[in-house]
């Protein structure tokens, strides 16, 4: 008997205290009884029994403790055991339905992977802190020009000295610029490096100290000071093998000996992503005039200052300078936090992509939820049996949660593989100007993000079958053996709602992608103002040591101008070359601007005027780039150093500054010289396709020589085939020059819109994925409806309904789903497309063409999805159906 009823004891949780008390009382009473039998009085017997027992309280306490511990262990054991059996059961369930499991894991895996990949980029580029302590307190100080409306212009060196002395907001204000330098070492090809030319206080302002060696001192940073350099960690490792003895070594930059004094810490990408080394700025307060805007300024806020107070401070300084110096007329100053300057160009696109990939995950989830609901119907009987055997809602929910957790863990694993691979593709395809994109990777933050998604998703999916189970009518299911049990009306409504949500989300993504595609298409049709086909561009920098460039004998820089002649001539004689030009900048580089005056319009210039983009070009420039002549003549070989000074302006300059007049014969003055305007040419978009062409003036390179030039070569065939030959010709003229930024203009043009293309492609991929998922969702719901209503349809057909009408039933349902999804999606897209406004070019966020096209696409998708189910419905044989019922 004991055996059987012991089993039920655990039904009521054992009462530890009660059991111990009973056991002790039994013992003492037995002893008492013995003593009474031996002749003791009951009181004496009781006392003696207690004495023999010892300290009753102590014994009880220890027994309680042991009992409770044991109880806890057993309960935990029970729990773990039941969880284990749930897990085993879940595994078996998933293994039995391999098709279902594979579809869910792949759908979710791809969506989670895409999210993790995009989040990695977001995290690596935007979230990770800059390697500068207190980076929020770093501000750039820009100058601006009220007349042209430009706001982010460089400052002049004298202005910098004034800001340094007069401000009350910064602990220090440093100046920097970026310059190419050519590293020459015997036995190696000359290498072009990007140097940050920085004032000595920049390292302190950024808050960095050298990895090895020392930083620049005030003594290094004086005009004519020592030639010293700090290497970037990257250059130190790649070019100097990470050798600490590099400190003190002499390297040749632009043919001048520089002593390496220090190595920058890793991760410092200042002033730009590709900075190879630092050299001191060495600019005194009077080194350059006030109208030369050559340096960028960076300051660290004092603890008692804010961005707003610093803005007021520099604004007041700008006003004082404007009152004091003619060159500062119209020039204002603004501050901008360094993180904003670095990241605000990429933030909108990345946020849009992160949002879009999140929507894809939602669509994937809706799809999987739909699959789970479908399966819940199939599982009704299993669930009903379990519930009938006493499994409570909590226990069932736990079972479902464990199943969905297993599914999502598997999906997340697939997702991480997808993310790792996808990230490699992303980083390779990303435009090079996204800051820090090279450092992007899967790290703990990303893993945490993925884990977070996984937990949320699996919790959500655990709920779906739980709710389905809650709505079950047990008796009904069991009685009808679960086969023909209909899942109930609200169950079907839930599935419809999910499909509608999928369609709506897909509409949002398709509209978004459509807007970007339209915008990109518009962008690519913009005429850059030059012919990019069959043009090679390459930059070179003439070192001052061998190419003296004194402003005392400007423009008679014999070494420089004869270099131009020789290179142009040698390259022109190469087979396959049609024309050659040298210019101060390639047509897609903004170049520099100058203040100017036009004869006869001095009154306007006195008020101040916008600056004009100044391009120094050799006579072959216009022919090489196919820039059309509109009036007068082009520059020619006759416009040499000693010939009358001439210039050509573009149509924009003619329209803006000489409207109504014939520009030919007018004179324009800048750099202290008057030049006669001899021609007007077409506009080139120097600031890229998205910006209008600025007003520009072209001067003959021989009359305005420069040491930083771009070589432009028009070829009859593929220009990239000529790179080797061009380099050989250059080196036959000067073997110590590096040719850098070599490429075709066609590629440069594509590169100038790489960011737009990247965003468009990614959003397009996301929209396509969402659409395919929505298609599968619609297909699933319709197939299910057809299967469910087979009987009804068969009867209808037996009663004389035609197949067309049955097909109509299916199509009507598809159309209803699509219409609701479309309406909701369009409303959401209209409301949400504002976030795309910054990213669009040439079209509005409410572009009707896009919305109409997206609507047609979604309806087409819904109809395509209904094709198979409709055919299946049409194929129903009434006889078979009626027989089967």
């Amino acid at each position: 008997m004991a055996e059987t009823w012991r089993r039920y004891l655990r039904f009521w949780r054992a009462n530890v205290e009660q059991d111990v008390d009973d056991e002790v009382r039994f013992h003492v009473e037995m002893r008492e009884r013995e003593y009474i039998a031996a002749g003791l009085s009951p009181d004496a017997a009781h006392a003696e029994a207690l004495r023999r027992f010892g300290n009753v309280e102590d014994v009880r306490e220890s027994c309680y403790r042991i009992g409770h511990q044991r109880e806890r262990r057993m309960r935990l054991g029970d729990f773990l055991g039941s969880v284990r059996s749930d897990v085993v059961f879940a595994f078996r369930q998933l293994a039995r339905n391999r098709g279902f499991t594979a579809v869910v894991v792949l759908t979710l895996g791809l969506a989670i992977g895409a999210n993790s990949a995009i989040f990695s980029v977001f995290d690596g580029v935007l979230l990770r802190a800059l390697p500068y302590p207190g980076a929020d307190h770093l501000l750039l100080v820009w100058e601006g020009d009220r007349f042209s409306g430009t706001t982010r212009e460089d400052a002049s060196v004298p202005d910098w000295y004034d800001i340094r002395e007069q401000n009350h907001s910064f602990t220090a204000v440093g100046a920097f610029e970026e310059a190419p330098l050519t590293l020459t070492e015997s036995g190696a090809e000359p290498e072009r490096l990007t140097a940050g030319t920085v004032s000595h206080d920049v390292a302190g302002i950024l808050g960095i100290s050298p990895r090895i060696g020392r930083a620049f001192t005030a003594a290094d940073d004086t005009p004519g000071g020592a030639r010293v350099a700090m290497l970037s960690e990257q250059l130190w490792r790649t070019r100097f093998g990470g050798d600490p003895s590099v400190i003190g070594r002499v390297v040749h930059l632009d043919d001048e000996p520089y002593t390496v004094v220090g190595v920058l810490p890793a991760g410092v990408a200042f002033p730009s992503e590709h900075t190879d080394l630092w050299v001191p700025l060495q600019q005194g307060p009077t080194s350059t005039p006030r109208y030369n805007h050559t340096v960028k300024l960076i300051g660290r806020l004092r603890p008692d200052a804010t961005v707003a107070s610093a803005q007021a401070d520099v604004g007041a300084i700008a006003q004082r300078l404007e009152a004091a110096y003619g060159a500062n007329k119209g020039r204002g100053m603004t501050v901008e936090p360094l993180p904003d300057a670095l990241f605000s160009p990429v933030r909108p696109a990345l946020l849009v992509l992160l949002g879009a990939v999140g929507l894809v995950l939602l669509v994937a989830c809706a799809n999987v939820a739909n699959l789970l609901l479908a399966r819940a119907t199939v599982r009704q009987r299993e669930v009903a049996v379990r519930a009938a055997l006493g499994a409570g809602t909590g226990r069932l929910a736990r079972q479902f949660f464990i199943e969905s957790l297993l599914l999502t863990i598997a999906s997340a694993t697939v997702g991480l593989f997808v993310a790792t691979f996808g990230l490699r593709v992303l980083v390779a395809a990303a435009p090079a100007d996204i800051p820090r994109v090279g450092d992007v990777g899967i790290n703990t933050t990303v893993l945490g993000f993925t884990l977070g998604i996984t937990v949320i998703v699996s919790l959500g999916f655990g709920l779906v079958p739980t709710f389905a189970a809650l709505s079950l009518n047990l008796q009904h299911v069991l009685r009808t053996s679960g086969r023909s049990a209909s899942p109930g009306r609200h169950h079907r409504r839930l599935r419809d709602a999910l499909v509608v949500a999928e369609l709506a989300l897909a509409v949002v993504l398709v509209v978004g992608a459509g807007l970007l595609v339209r915008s990109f298409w518009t962008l690519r049709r913009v005429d850059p103002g030059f012919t990019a086909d069959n043009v090679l561009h390459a930059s070179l920098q003439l070192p001052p040591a061998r190419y003296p460039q004194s402003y005392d004998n400007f423009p008679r820089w014999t070494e420089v101008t004869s270099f131009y002649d020789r290179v142009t001539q040698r390259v022109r004689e190469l087979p396959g070359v049609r024309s050659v030009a040298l210019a101060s900048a390639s047509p897609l580089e903004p170049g520099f601007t100058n203040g100017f005056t036009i004869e006869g319009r001095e009154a306007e210039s006195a008020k101040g005027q916008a600056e004009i983009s100044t391009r120094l070009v050799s006579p072959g420039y216009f022919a090489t780039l196919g820039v059309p002549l509109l009036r007068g003549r082009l520059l020619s070989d006759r416009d040499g150093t000693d010939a009358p000074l001439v210039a050509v302006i573009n149509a924009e300059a003619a329209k803006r500054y000489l409207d109504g007049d014939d520009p030919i014969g007018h004179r324009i003055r800048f750099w202290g010289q008057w030049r006669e305007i001899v021609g007007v040419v077409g506009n080139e978009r120097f600031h890229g396709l998205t910006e209008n062409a600025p007003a520009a003036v072209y001067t003959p390179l021989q009359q305005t020589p420069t040491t930083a030039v771009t070589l432009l070569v028009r070829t009859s065939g593929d220009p990239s085939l000529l790179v080797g030959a061009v380099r050989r010709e250059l080196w036959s003229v000067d073997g110590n020059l590096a040719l850098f930024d070599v490429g075709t203009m066609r590629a440069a043009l594509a590169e100038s819109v790489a960011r737009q293309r990247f965003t468009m492609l990614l959003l397009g991929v996301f929209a396509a994925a969402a659409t395919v998922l929505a298609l599968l969702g619609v297909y699933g719901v319709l197939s299910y409806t057809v299967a469910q209503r087979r009987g009804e349809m068969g009867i209808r057909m037996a009663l004389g309904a035609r197949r067309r009408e049955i097909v109509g039933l299916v199509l009507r349902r598809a159309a209803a789903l699509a219409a609701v999804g479309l309406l909701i999606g369009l409303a959401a897209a209209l409301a949400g497309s504002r976030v795309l406004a910054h990213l669009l070019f040439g079209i509005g966020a409410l572009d009707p063409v896009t919305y109409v096209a997206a609507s047609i696409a979604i309806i087409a998708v819904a109809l395509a999805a209904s094709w198979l189910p409709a055919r299946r419905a049409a194929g129903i044989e009434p006889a078979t159906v009626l027989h089967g019922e």
Partner: protein
Amino acid sequence: MAGPGVDLFQGTLDMLILKAVSWGPVHGYSVARWLQETTNDVLRVEEGSLYPALHRMEAREWIVAEWGVSENNRRAKFYRLTPQGRKQLRAQASTWSRFADAVGLVMTATSQPA
């Protein structure tokens, strides 16, 4: 504790209880009685200390307990040895007899230390 008696070494009580329980299901009181009778009342154990020892061994799964009815029809907790407990008893008993033999050899030695 009255009268001449021997205190138990730590751990020895466990072995004695295991031995007592090895005869079949017994409750705590009969373990106490059995110890008393078998040792002629030489080993003086505070009877209360049997219970924590029993419960500890129950937690270690050397013995199992079940509630049953005593000789005089009272609800009582009966203990029984598990296979694991039997193994434990065998191991402890063999250690004990080697120990006792060794001590015996020493105490009955006839030669003095060199």
